[in-house]
């Protein structure tokens, strides 16, 4: 990486603080073969298919993909927030050793907010517009058994300060705050009980560029200080490029590639990932003509046999159309592409591959 004259550090380099003592090692979240279907009147749509991954304590995992890829459904599936017609039909979500799938509401309530919290996409939709911020914090804390007024007030002020908001705003209503401040209050609310895992669904998409960057920096700092793990869903890869430890790319309900962020950016293996990288016009680099990825994502009610990306893939060959690829391990990255079958890296994108072209 080039040296930059002003102070610069890549925040992803910093080691996360040790996880809280309540969990002693091993991945904090283990998702195995999670499958979610939308059961509609005439169709069954396979929105998420057999997604598996681990999350270490304090790790920042970004899940990226375009609309319809299933990333939000996956997120809600993990948080057990799916409603009919969406249903988890297979798989498990082991959070700190307990499978969340199938837990009753009362068990889930005990975990929610204390150990696992969720930050939604639009604060204006998630915050109650007729209650002050402080009142909503109070509601959340009361709902989880904190009764002492003093404790509630102290903790509310504390979390607001953590996200850089003056505690005087406990009295403010959501519409009185700016967009960035609202999102920060959502994050503050998520941190009331210092959870081990915070799940975020595109929390920055309603913000402008400067506020976005400042919020990401804030999240990273909080993560360093408190030590929670983050699953961050977004459609904007470049946003998380400097903040996430690992990056998971989803396509048509499946994981197409997952690995260390920098590695994915430097050498994307899956043709879809490579295509996505190519689709971002650069601000500073040379100006080149880009072509994007032709075609459209498949209809999830009847996905194509074989690889789901085959109809649009520039590197497609015959087997791709009939044989669905598994996830193959290549140098610490998992990639779902027949080009990398058997774990060999026949060639990085750009070079001729060993597989025969169609």
């Amino acid at each position, binding site marked *: *990486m*080039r040296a*930059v004259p*002003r*102070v*610069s*550090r*890549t*925040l992803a380099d910093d080691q996360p603080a040790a996880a809280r003592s309540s969990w002693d090692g091993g991945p904090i979240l283990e998702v195995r073969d999670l499958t979610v279907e939308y059961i509609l009147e005439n169709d069954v749509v396979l929105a998420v298919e057999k997604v598996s991954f681990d999350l270490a304590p304090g790790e920042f995992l970004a899940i990226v993909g*375009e*609309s319809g890829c299933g990333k939000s459904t996956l997120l809600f599936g993990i948080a057990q927030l799916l409603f009919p017609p969406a249903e988890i039909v297979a798989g498990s979500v082991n959070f700190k050793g307990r499978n969340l799938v199938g837990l009753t509401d009362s068990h889930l309530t005990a975990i929610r907010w204390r150990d696992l919290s969720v930050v939604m996409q639009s604060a204006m939709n998630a915050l109650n517009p007729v209650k002050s911020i402080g009142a909503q914090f109070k509601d959340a804390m009361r709902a989880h058994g904190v009764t002492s007024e003093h404790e509630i007030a102290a903790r509310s002020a504390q979390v607001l300060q953590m996200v*850089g908001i003056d505690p005087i705003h406990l009295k403010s209503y959501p519409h009185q705050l*700016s*967009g*960035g401040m609202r999102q920060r209050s959502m994050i503050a609310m998520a941190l009331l009980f210092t959870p081990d895992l915070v799940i975020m669904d595109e929390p920055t998409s309603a913000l*402008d*560029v*400067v*506020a*976005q*960057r*400042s919020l990401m*920096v804030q999240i990273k700092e909080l993560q360093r200080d408190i030590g929670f793990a983050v699953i961050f869903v977004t*459609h*904007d*890869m*470049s*946003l998380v*490029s*400097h903040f996430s430890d690992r990056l998971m790319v989803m396509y048509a309900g499946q994981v197409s590639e997952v690995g260390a962020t920098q590695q994915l*950016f430097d050498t994307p293996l899956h043709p879809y990932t490579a*295509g*996505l*990288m190519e*689709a*971002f*016009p*650069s*601000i*500073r*680099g040379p*100006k080149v*003509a*880009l*072509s*994007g*990825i*032709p075609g*459209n994502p498949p209809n999830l009610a009847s996905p194509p046999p074989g690889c789901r990306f085959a109809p649009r893939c520039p590197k497609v060959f015959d087997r791709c159309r009939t044989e669905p690829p598994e996830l193959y391990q290549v140098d610490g990255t998992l990639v779902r592409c027949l080009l990398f079958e058997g774990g060999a890296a026949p060639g990085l994108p750009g070079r001729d591959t060993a597989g025969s072209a169609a």
Partner: protein
Amino acid sequence: MTEPWAPPEQVLADGTEPLLRTEKLTRHFKIGSALSQKTLHAVDEVDLSVGSRQIVALAGESGSGKSTIARLLAKIYKPTSGEVYFEGRPISSFRSRKDRLWYSGLAPMVFQDPFASINPVFRVSHGMLRSLKLHRPELSKQDQLAEAERVFDVVGLTPPADVLLRYPHELSGGQRQRVGFAQALAMRPKLILADEPVSMLDVSIRIGLLNLMVKLRDEEGVSILYITHDLASARYVADRLIVMYAAQIAEAGPIEEVMSSPRHPYTQLLLSAAPDPRAPLGVGAETDRGEPPKVIDPTPGCRFRWRCPLAMETCHTVTPVLKPIGVGRDVACHVAQSGAEVKAF
């Protein structure tokens, strides 16, 4: 203050009038109750121009006024003061139905939301044929259909006869936006007002639309006013860049120049904040937690002064005016206009 102030780059070097130019374009909204009336300044004294066969990017964050400008240019709003000149004629003089129709055919608008900008009840051909009926009545029914198919082809919706018969919900977001461009193109426009046409589309689809815009400029000779908050896409398509902040223009100029050596602190902030995975993260602006202000009953002075590390005495008392600082380069900043180097973010 004594020198005669010439509006920057309003009249081209050879004296010809640009395709579109605005002169002190202003739009205010009254807000508040009857007891405490306040004025929201959405656009304040904006001078901008667009030439022929040119793509001009109008960039800014939400609330900067860029969308309001689009609507002022499309005659959806009436300006509070100031004027817009199209081919030298003030658009406020277009009152009769004939004139208004003439103008709306030459300067149509493409909207941001592909899911809301087409009537879901009718086939896609409905809007197309209505446009043609209103703006090119000299064509016969057959010719209108042929023209509809032709523009669908130009924007990449193939096979055109097939797509014309579809309903909006059967098309993807990218396809719907192409329909929007096709409708605009059918009117044989000189200038397309594109209000954030790609920001609601997936990233891999955006490039297709951006390439389409370049194609329209090159092959169909159409100018485009591309309104966006994304500087990277602006760089990809545009010839000139105009940066807006808090209802005013902060900086304007040829796009490569502005992006490689920005002279306004706000432009520098935007550029540094834009995520670029190919460059390491600059954490320099960590302290900037600010957001663009809602301009309600503003006081004189530069509206960026609260966030600007270079703010001087004058910045707090005198509102800077857009002035040329180079060929085709304009900036509204006291520090930049004084000749000093601007290195804010």
